[in-house]
């Protein structure tokens, strides 16, 4: 297999000795056209890797900010098919930035697993994170995705002990996503030192890059976590910026810029992590 966009991106950042700045935004939030504009401007705002949320009615692992983002997107008519179309449009102008879909299994299951991996691949998706598919359910989507040449990025958490880690890493590709806490997206990181220890512990078991997410909200957070992690993921803060820019629930001219300027600041934090 040729080297994936994810692999090349992390390799080139490693050469620069800086962590990847990974941004999460919700597909179709607050509407498709605005979401297109947000997505298109993220690389210029410093995003090294993009996670695109697939909205779901029942996001069990998400805090209020991402719940609301999903609700806005669904209310505006977003579907999985339209999410894939967004990726395809993004790829017309950007062939370098890794694009990872993140969400829950049911919409994929209903779309059809085989059809989904084929369509995702041809749209220009590089990998996926599916929160409610643990290693025990690898037959469902993980193995078909890998067979189609897509990365399946797995979450590891503070509850994943050393014995379990091997199982979790077994079919993980692209990078490992370490969840900084036991909790939902957007919550507070209670113990930042423990995050660094955990990243080092995971790296002892794998050559894959380790990105850290959940609870990273400021450039200072990004700088601190980025010392040990190969990537820092920011999601809730960015979708909260979408929300704050709305007027009567609708996008304004300021919406894409609000997300991009916050992303640029956070990206500076990540870039300064090891300088």
């Amino acid at each position, binding site marked *: 297999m040729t080297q994936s966009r994810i692999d090349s991106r992390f390799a080139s950042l490693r050469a620069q000795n800086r962590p990847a700045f990974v941004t999460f935004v919700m597909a179709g939030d607050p509407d498709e056209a605005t979401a297109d504009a947000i997505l298109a401007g993220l690389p210029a705002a410093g995003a090294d890797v993009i996670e695109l949320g697939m909205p*779901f*009615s*029942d*996001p*069990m*692992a*998400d*805090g209020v900010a991402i*719940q609301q983002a999903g609700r806005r997107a*669904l209310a505006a008519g977003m*579907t*999985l*098919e339209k999410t894939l179309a967004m990726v395809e449009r993004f790829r017309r102008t950007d062939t370098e930035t890794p694009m990872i879909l993140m969400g829950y*299994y*049911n*919409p*994929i*299951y*209903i*779309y059809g697993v085989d059809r989904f991996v084929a369509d995702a691949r041809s749209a220009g998706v590089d990998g996926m994170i599916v*929160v*409610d*598919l*643990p*290693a*025990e*359910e690898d037959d469902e989507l993980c193995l078909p995705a890998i067979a189609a040449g897509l990365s399946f990025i*797995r*979450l*590891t*958490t*503070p*509850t*994943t*002990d050393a014995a*379990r880690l091997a199982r*979790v890493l077994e079919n993980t590709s692209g990078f490992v996503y370490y*969840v900084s806490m*036991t*909790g*939902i997206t957007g*919550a507070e990181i209670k113990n930042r030192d423990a995050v660094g220890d955990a990243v080092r512990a995971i790296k002892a078991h794998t050559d894959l890059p380790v990105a850290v997410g959940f609870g990273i909200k400021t450039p200072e957070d990004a700088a601190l976590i980025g010392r040990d992690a190969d990537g820092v993921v920011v999601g809730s803060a960015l979708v909260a910026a979408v929300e704050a820019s709305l007027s009567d629930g609708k996008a304004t001219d300021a919406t894409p810029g609000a997300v991009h300027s916050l992303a640029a600041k956070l990206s500076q934090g990540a870039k300064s992590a090891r300088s």
Partner: protein
Amino acid sequence: MSQVKINSLRQGPDENGRFGLYGGRFVAETLMPLILDLEKSYNAAQDDPEFHAEMDDLRTHFAGRPSPLYFAERMSAELGGARLFFKREDLNHTGSHKLNNCIGQILLARRMGKTRIIAETGAGQHGVATATVCARFGLPCTVFMGATDVERQMPNVLRMRMLGAEVRPVTAGAGTLKDAMNEALRDWVTNVDTTYYLIGTAAGPHPYPRMVRDFQKVIGEEIRAQMMEAEGRLPDAVVACIGGGSNAIGTFHDFLDEPGVALYGTEAAGYGLDVDNGHAASMAGGSPGVLHGNRTYLLQDADGQIREGHSISAGLDYPGVGPEHAFLRDSGRVTYVPITDQQALDAFMACTRFEGIIPALESAHGLAYAMELVPTLSPEAIVVLCLSGRGDKDVESVGRRLGMGN
């Protein structure tokens, strides 16, 4: 009790928590180690005579089991046809079958050293039962309940608060059981070290569907023993209502390998199956999907987004169903029938007036089908309905609907 046979329908789930296509462990990694640990603890408890002794003692002296099997003489005479019996789970302590499961799980939580209990509730029956066992064992308890349900089941909210539980109204979505379960899962993932999630129905990730069924199957086992003693034979048909389906699986399980016993589960058809998003019949009006840790029949749209559904009964107002029911439906062993709000209301009033028993609106869905079935059978036939709960919690909303408040 019958032996488990080869080709038995009573052998599920497999080691991966599957009942055929259904079930499984569709949860976030944070919860996965805990779920594996729960399974191990549950298996150990099952093999420990002390666990069973403690559970039996609580069933007898705290819950008041066995619950009576009651001949509904006036209703049988009025309907004409088979004789109708009620399995009186409404006489259980706390007023429903829910306590059976809570007793089992609270003992398990204690064995696992958990110090805090959370639960979701729809009608509030499971919330009350959970708050009750938490009071009994001195454990702090938080119950998540949809804001809509808090309003329509206020008596149960007050009971939970009196028992010392914190009731957290959930405003997301339609403010019903599905949203309460999402919020409970979010709390659990946040407090996974200390907290035991006491799921109230035979759904969720493995091992919950199996565990809840095992704690509820006492219902069917007692029906068998009581029927053999009273009539010297098994019933011809057994009927129970289905939300998640814990009373129904508990009622059916002992009879799955008895081909002579017809089994009927009733789903909430709300305003009618033909009304868009107007019912909660996930099997009659849904399709297989993945939610809340398991694959099962769900109410969902073409994009896999979960719909809210509707039922007059807060306990049945859930867009999914336990995975074992999904399996039993596909296998054809159990017949699932939709019952509308109006049919349930009619049955509610019939039971109240003819038998002097106010049933829960949930149980009235089962009764409505029993009332259809009984006249089609001969006088020698016997039908048993699981009267899963009492209706005190519903008198206000039913009274209002029937204009009795003036």
